[in-house]
């Protein structure tokens, strides 16, 4: 294993799904169910059995819009406000209206959700305004249940294959993708009529404070390949300056408070043990308050459980140590932290792109269509904001169904053989060198520069220096990067995506000359929100080989927002503390 094998093969299918984490399996299932005659291929860099953010399952389903608890109108309103109004409501509303079906379907798959004595779904309130969190008592079984369905529908799964670029036809339509076997470096051309990108967040952009390259909040397989591929194919990417930054346990990349411990009475506190935010639900505004407290004389910030009954703490620990990030218990044990006695130190995560948790993603409409014909995106990498795991499932389903409908109507597009030849050369270049800079060093440097220059608070001159320094690293990538085996080549190709994402982060952040979304886009030299000029989306894309950004008007709201409602998320700080 890991030795280079010289190989090139071509595969043809109708619908190609790239990324078998959360959205991908659902997209593949729905495409196949829509038309069982179609040939559906699911491509995965890791192994679908245990890949993606939900590798070890999850403790709760966000954001569930369940009759009796919330309506699609309420949810659409909440997300519009949480995202500072920069929302096309159609995809959010469509998600909200569809997701209850998907919950019931997942329940039938054997992923059981918490129910009350009457057998009705039993949700918890975490968000500022509405109730949308549905606990999953057997959350660790999610991936197994999905895998069973994939086998049943006879979806063709290709594991340990990393997609690197998309293929387009002369008329601009999508024509497939190219990929590399991560254990042999064999090259693969996948021709398809429609392609669905489900490659998760860009989670390996910033460097965790620990300095450990793989200690990221996101599953580090999600190195931003999807963002880079969409960019190079000419698709538009929306609001990339609206970074993902999350509150985590210090040094351990597990989330903590809001969604699990919060409903039991735990909360985020300062060093005095006092609450400083009204709602622990994640948003840019919440992160700004978190950051302010962290930097203040009352910092650092803690997760507080030690006021709860010991049995309650036991119940919380049982959930936290079983699913999602189950090595968490070992981390605390090694440090001698007992939740019952001491508050747990928290910190903020590295930066990334993610729509699941914020709003930075490949632009999609309510059918999960990108701006490239035949190309779809769903899950964390698609621009539907704040849609978490249930968003990945639901929009994956939407994408799968639409992509199947289109694929059955069209012929297989031709692709450009020259492009494939050049891409193969690009990929294999680091394997042709015997001497140079290994991928781990290049990655460390790139991500250290991202931290030094691109993370908020954002300053114009600093970001410009960052661009120049990152350009030097890119030159090293092109001229000196060496990969001695297929595994190192996998890491090298991931660095290529990381560099692309870093460039996009800088470009998008410089373009929006205002501050918005709390900490996510806190531009120190443009400290005010400027609705007059910037109440709009920004779209970034590649035009004639160059990165350009433009404004895009927000589609007229379907659900109107009252003026006083608009600012609800700006009033998160506990009032007697201000």
């Amino acid at each position, binding site marked *: *294993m*890991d030795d280079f094998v010289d190989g090139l093969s071509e595969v043809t299918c109708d619908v190609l799904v790239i990324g078998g984490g959360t959205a991908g399996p659902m997209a593949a299932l729905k495409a196949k169910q829509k038309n069982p005659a179609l040939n559906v291929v699911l491509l995965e860099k*890791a*192994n679908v*059995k*245990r*890949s*993606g953010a939900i*590798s*070890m399952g999850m403790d709760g389903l966000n954001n569930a819009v369940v009759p009796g608890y919330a309506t699609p109108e309420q949810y659409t309103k909440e997300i519009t406000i949480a995202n500072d109004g920069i929302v096309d409501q159609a995809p959010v509303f469509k998600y909200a209206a569809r997701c209850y079906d998907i919950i019931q379907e997942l329940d039938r798959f054997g992923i059981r959700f918490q129910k009350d004595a009457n057998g009705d779904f039993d949700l918890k309130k975490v968000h500022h305004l509405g109730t949308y969190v549905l606990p999953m008592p057997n959350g660790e079984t999610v991936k197994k249940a999905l895998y069973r369905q994939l086998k049943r529908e006879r979806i063709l799964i290709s594991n*340990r294959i990393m997609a690197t670029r998309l293929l387009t036809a002369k008329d601009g339509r999508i024509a497939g993708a190219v990929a590399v076997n*991560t*254990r042999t470096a064999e090259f693969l051309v996948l021709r398809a009529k429609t392609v669905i990108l489900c490659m998760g967040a860009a989670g390996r952009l910033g460097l965790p404070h*620990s*300095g*450990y*390259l*793989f*200690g*990221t909040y996101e*599953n*580090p*397989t999600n190195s931003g390949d999807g963002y880079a591929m969409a960019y190079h194919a000419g698709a538009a990417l929306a609001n990339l300056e609206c970074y993902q930054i999350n509150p985590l346990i210090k*040094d*351990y990349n597990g989330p903590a408070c809001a969604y699990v411990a919060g409903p039991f009475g735990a909360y985020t506190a300062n060093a005095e043990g006092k609450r400083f935010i009204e709602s622990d639900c994640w948003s840019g505004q919440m992160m700004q308050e978190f950051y302010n407290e962290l930097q203040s004389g009352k910092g650092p910030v803690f997760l507080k459980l030690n006021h709860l009954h010991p049995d309650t703490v036991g119940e919380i620990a049982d959930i936290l140590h079983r699913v999602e*990030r*189950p*090595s968490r218990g*070992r*981390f605390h044990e*090694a*440090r001698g932290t007992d939740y019952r006695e001491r508050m747990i130190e928290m910190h903020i995560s590295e930066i990334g792109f993610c729509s699941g948790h914020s709003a930075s993603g490949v632009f999609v409409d309510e059918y999960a269509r990108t701006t490239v014909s035949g190309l779809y995106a769903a899950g964390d990498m698609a621009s539907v904001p704040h849609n978490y795991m249930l968003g990945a499932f639901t929009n994956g389903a939407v994408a799968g169904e639409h992509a199947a409908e289109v694929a059955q109507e069209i012929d297989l597009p031709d692709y450009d053989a020259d492009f494939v030849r050049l891409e193969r050369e690009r990929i294999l270049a680091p394997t042709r060198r015997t*001497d*140079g*800079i*290994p991928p781990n060093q290049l990655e460390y440097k790139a991500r250290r520069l991202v931290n030094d220059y691109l993370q908020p608070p954002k300053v114009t001159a600093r970001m410009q220096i960052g661009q120049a320094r990152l350009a030097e690293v890119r030159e090293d990538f092109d001229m*000196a990067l*060496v990969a001695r085996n297929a*595994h190192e080549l*996998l*890491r090298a190709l991931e660095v290529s995506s990381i560099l692309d994402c870093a460039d996009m982060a800088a470009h998008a952040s410089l373009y929006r000359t205002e501050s918005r979304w709390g900490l996510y886009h806190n531009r120190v030299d443009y400290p005010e929100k400027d609705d007059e000029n910037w109440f709009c989306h920004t779209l970034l894309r590649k035009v004639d080989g160059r990165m350009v950004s433009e404004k895009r008007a927000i589609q007229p709201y379907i659900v109107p927002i009252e003026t006083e409602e608009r600012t609800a998320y700006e009033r998160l700080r506990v009032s007697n503390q201000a």
Partner: protein
Amino acid sequence: MPLALSPTAVPVVVDEAKCIADKGCTVCVDVCPLDVLRISDLTSKAYMKFDECWYCMPCETDCPTGAVTVNIPYLLR
């Protein structure tokens, strides 16, 4: 630029007495999302080849003999 070898203490440990890779098992290698485990040519047992771990635990959870222990990487401990 010649390459040096920098030692690193890996977080995942395999109990060779329990590991049945020599009987054909490759479960931990198959499931690891980061693809950092391998079967050793020398010992025919599983081991952590690359220090690129998310300490996520599928390897430990899915091992049929309980041979794998996931520790927290030293830098985070």
